[in-house]
């Protein structure tokens, strides 16, 4: 396979793997956080407002790792320096 094909195929594969594997950890983490929050709300229904607020903050922190993976995928797909370099070399 020539350079263009190789870089294209590797980029697509890397993008898919980045978001696919990168979404597993945060998903499990957010599920655990929701589990703990629901259990706490069931034990103390009066504190539901406080618990909900803290739950959203914890979910945002877990989400940030998934967002890092998403940003890497977007960079690979749309601002790929290797692809741009190969395209420039071929255009010359």
């Amino acid at each position, binding site marked *: 396979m020539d350079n263009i094909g190789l870089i294209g195929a590797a980029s697509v594969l890397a993008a898919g793997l980045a978001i696919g594997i990168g979404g597993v950890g945060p998903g499990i983490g957010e599920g655990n956080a929701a589990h703990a929050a629901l259990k706490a709300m069931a034990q103390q229904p009066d504190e539901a407002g406080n618990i909900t607020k803290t739950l*959203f*903050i914890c979910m*945002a*922190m877990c*989400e*940030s790792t998934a*967002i*890092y993976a*998403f*940003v890497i995928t*977007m960079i690979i*797909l*749309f*601002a790929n320096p290797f692809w741009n370099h190969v395209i420039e070399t071929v255009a010359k």
Partner: protein
Amino acid sequence: MIENFDKIIVFTVFGFGINATIFSTWIIMAILMLLSWLATRNLSHTVGGKVSRVQTAMEAIVKAIHDQIKAADPHNNPMVFMPMIGTFFLFIAVANLLTIIPWFKPPTASLSTSLAYAICVAVVMFVYGFKTAGFLGYLRKYIEPHPIMLPLNIISDIASIFSLAVRLYGNVLSGCVVGTVLLALVPYLIPLPLQLLGLLTGTIQAYIFAILSIMYITSVEPKKRK
């Protein structure tokens, strides 16, 4: 396909192309300044006197931010940090909430805006650390558990600043990109719940940015007895 909002030129002024990010920032600045002027036109203290509704609303918002800063950092007067943290929170919240207007490009969807705010937080972190703990006292934090942790502590500092920027940028940008993709695929009703989710995460990210910047800034301070 991904929108880089820094490349859309709206109009040119004196030879500079004003891109969509700067234009949206100006719009948000105009909105916030108009609201502040309306709220502080006839400031009045007394409950019996006439207190305008905008002033009451603004006081509620300022009190909410004040309580949040106090909850994150109980040892200081919250008014020391209120200008910067309040501005971060209000600007990012208004910027993310205004995405409900169809052709508005949120300025936080550009890495330049988020990175600029994160660098401001980094500078304040250093300056406040030097002011409260002294130059050597601040540098001692890098060899805190054991001097062999020095490179790891430096990297963790840099990474927390970058993560502050990328978290905000990534959340807002992912909301915009998902909205664009869904509009291309199923434009009829499906983008609506995702637009709502985008509004919710935008507000939460504003709150997270403000609270995390307080935590980073006051992390080195020696805890005085109150």
